[in-house]
């Protein structure tokens, strides 16, 4: 069964920086994706701390309102497109070939190009702060016609979004092709690990959604410079059209982020419960239903634009329906844990943290689905709290779970378990200190994206800011854990997790060799 090659091609590759520039190896590219993502996570995190510093108390103390708006915009764009999405593409690169028994991705050179588009795009986003007038202060949603008023920073943001979109589309084509064509003999679709399934579905979402975003920002660009009036009523356009196009991308985008996170958790929980995933097939169907529904609910982000009441009713019912497949997934994870033989190493802790807090974010999603309630809460801190539960405690915690789970396979060394647990507990406590109180701010009526607020909101904002700094500093611990593991981690056992049963654990040595599965394994 040993499918590893004795002959390692590592001597063929250039060394130093050129290794990384020219590499077509899925493991190298996965590593680069993950480090890029972590770097952007730090940059976006600093922006979040600037926002929270200004909001520490009422009054304008640290930044001016226009810079504050630029921070909220860039924080959102960098975290969504620079941190979370590349992190999961990094996992896809490392894991998909190993989990389906393929030697590499289907298009290795395009894979290299997909990654190397990211640093220029990230640089454009950061550079936009330093051009005259600064970056775009429009929010990550880039609603027209505020975008028309912005300086050249807006154009840099638009180009960055174009490039990020190209990278995502190419990455997705690569993933779909790899999964559909390069599975080991015997690995039927319904035998694929759930992580692979979730990425197959996500890749289709990306291919369908990213061009729509590219269209929206291109129309913004031509409205700004070439005299078109797509979003200008005076020229026959409609500002609300932008919102429809944006959210037709934007809602699937939520699931583009969440679905690979579901995939990671669906690998981790069975491994540490030492028990197979309850309802594999229903998980696949639930994920697919969520993906399809995600294209049918976009205008629930727009309940206050004045749609006809019939449309509002439709979007309300369709949105509530998403609770059903999401519920199926949560029940499945809990049923997987039920009567298992659980241990609670760091990956499992983060997976449970994900399950607990993502579900909380799902519940507030149900609250927001109800149009009359949403009219009260739309564009308030309640929404900010809601999507950070889904994006941070959901996607980010799942990414942490994935890193701790697969790190031994990637580098052949163990992380420090005690420090990992510290990282988990600090993260989950400070996360809740930061974001739980924001529900109360939203209920009391504090609008989002304001640099200053009335005195009634002072205490919860202060608590939230303290939590944010705690959460931010806890992530430096994560960096320390990674460096410590890479430099001086203990040698990892061949299979550190008892319940791990996918090909990378059962058919490859630890650490995984540079080239793996040059001869495909046979899956029974």
């Amino acid at each position, binding site marked *: 069964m040993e499918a590893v090659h004795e002959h390692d091609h590592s001597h063929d590759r250039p060394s130093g920086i050129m290794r990384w520039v020219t590499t077509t190896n899925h493991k190298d590219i996965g590593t680069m994706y993950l480090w890029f993502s972590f770097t952007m996570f730090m940059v976006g995190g600093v922006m979040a701390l600037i926002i929270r510093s200004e909001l520490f108390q009422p*009054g*304008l103390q640290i930044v*001016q*309102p*226009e810079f504050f*708006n630029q921070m909220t915009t860039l924080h959102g764009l960098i975290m969504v497109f620079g941190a979370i999405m590349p992190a999961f593409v990094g996992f896809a690169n490392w894991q998909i070939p190993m989990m389906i028994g393929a030697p590499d991705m289907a298009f290795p050179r395009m894979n290299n190009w997909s990654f190397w588009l990211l640093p220029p795009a990230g640089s454009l986003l950061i550079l936009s702060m330093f051009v*005259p*007038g600064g970056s775009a*202060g*429009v929010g990550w949603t880039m609603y027209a*016609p*505020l975008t028309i008023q912005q300086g050249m920073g807006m154009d840099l943001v638009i180009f960055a979004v174009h490039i990020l979109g190209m990278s995502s589309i190419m990455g997705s084509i690569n993933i779909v092709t790899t999964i559909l064509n390069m599975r080991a003999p015997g690995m039927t679709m319904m035998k694929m690990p759930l992580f692979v399934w979730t990425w197959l579905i996500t890749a289709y979402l990306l291919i369908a959604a990213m061009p729509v975003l590219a269209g929206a920002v291109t129309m913004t660009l031509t409205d700004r410079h070439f005299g078109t009036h797509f979003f200008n*009523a005076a020229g026959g356009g*409609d*500002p*609300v059209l932008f919102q429809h196009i944006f959210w037709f991308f934007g809602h699937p985008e939520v699931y583009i982020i969440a679905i690979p996170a579901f995939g990671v958790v669906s690998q981790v929980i069975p491994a540490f419960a030492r028990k197979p995933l*309850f309802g594999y097939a*229903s998980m696949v169907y639930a994920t697919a239903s969520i993906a399809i529904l995600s294209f049918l609910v976009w205008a629930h982000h727009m309940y*206050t*634009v*004045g749609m006809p009441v019939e449309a509002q*009713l439709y979007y*309300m*019912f369709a949105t*509530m329906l998403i*609770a*059903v497949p999401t519920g*199926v997934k949560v029940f499945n994870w*809990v049923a997987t*844990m039920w*009567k*298992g*033989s659980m*241990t*609670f190493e760091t990956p499992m802790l983060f997976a449970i943290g994900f*399950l607990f807090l993502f*579900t*909380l974010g799902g*519940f507030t999603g149900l*609250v927001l689905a*109800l*149009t*009359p*309630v949403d*009219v*009260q809460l739309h*564009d308030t801190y309640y929404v900010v709290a809601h999507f950070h539960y889904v994006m941070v405690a959901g996607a980010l915690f799942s990414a942490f779970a994935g890193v701790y789970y697969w790190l031994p396979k990637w580098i052949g060394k163990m992380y420090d378990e005690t420090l990992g647990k510290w990282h988990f507990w600090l993260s989950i406590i400070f996360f809740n200190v930061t974001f739980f109180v924001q529900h*109360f701010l939203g*209920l*009391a*009526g504090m*609008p989002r*994206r*304001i640099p*200053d*607020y*009335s005195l*009634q909101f002072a*205490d*919860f904002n202060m608590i939230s800011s303290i939590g944010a700094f705690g959460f931010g500093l806890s992530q430096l611990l994560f960096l320390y854990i990674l460096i410590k593991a890479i430099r001086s981690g203990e040698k990892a056992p061949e299979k550190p997790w008892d319940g791990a049963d996918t090909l990378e654990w059962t058919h490859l040595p630890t650490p995984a060799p540079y080239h793996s599965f040059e001869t495909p394994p046979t899956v029974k």
Partner: protein
Amino acid sequence: MGLKAFSRLFCLAAAMLVSGVALAEYRLNLKPANTALGEAVYDLHTLVMIIITVIFVGVFGFMFYSIFKHRKSAGHEAAHFHENTTVEIVWTVVPVFILIGLAWPATKTLLEMRDTSAPDMTIKVTGYQWKWGYEYLDDDVKFYSALATPRDQIEGNAEKGENYLLEVDKPLVVPVGKKVRILTTANDVLHAWYVPELAVKQDAIPGFIRDTWFRAEETGTFRGQCAELCGKEHGFMPIVVNVVSENDYKIWVAEQKSGTGAAAYDPAKTYTVAELSSAGESVYGTHCVACHQPGGNGMPPTFPALTGGKITTGPIANHLDIVLNGSKKNPMMAAFGSQLSDMEIAAVITYERNALGNSVGDSLQPGEVAAARN
């Protein structure tokens, strides 16, 4: 870690509960509504909170029980079951029924919320960067409403007042018990008219009219804010609604009609620089100060300085043109021709040329503004 960690977590949760009691004076829920519709929204929110709390306790009760009992350190052996069609059908179908139970009251409330027919009065609300314009379509009253909090309080040079950032120079006044239909639109970018206690939030979209309504049940002052990002002063365009008795409302309307104030001028008179400047100072304070700043220094490059500026110290015709028609180069400079009267434009231009560190010495008569409009 293990058990010790979880007991620590529970201690923390308990501590949070206790501090929750101590925090009783803080607002943890929607504000009590001043409209019947708002009460329906409040009740709907309470219903959904009860449902999700019950499900939350149920699901995570199972999970935490499992975490305590089904752990390897407690010697629990893993079972190997998976898939159970009955269970899977139950947990798919039961939520559907719960959702239908929620959708029913939500639909009823939504239909009521969107029924703007047969209003007692209609007010058109226009969002501007960064103030609100109100126009009473039935009573022929029209005015602007801008932030009244002094800059000193925002910058921390003075103590913040009770209604910091939620006070305006001229509040909206409406009669109690009447169905008030609000039409929203905007002059420049998106805004949203949001007053939590009246359960109203409606986007204001340039070039389009949207509507919403409320019927206040009690008199009082209700405060809200712009809820859609509209540029740098988004956080500084509050809404204040004074709900008064019908009689007080009639008196208020009569007052508005008698005192047209700044808009009126005597065409036969030639105003002096001093007269115009002193009238212009308050116009500047309402319409110009957010961008061009109290001292006229602006915030270059987007908001140029007026002190020693090319336009404010150059030919007066150019100055009038940019105030009337806006800037062709810089979209941030709005056209004020439709917002300000001839007298206000004459006053503010004269003020800008003879104050804020400028001393050009010339002045503009309201008649000249009227002539430039044609």
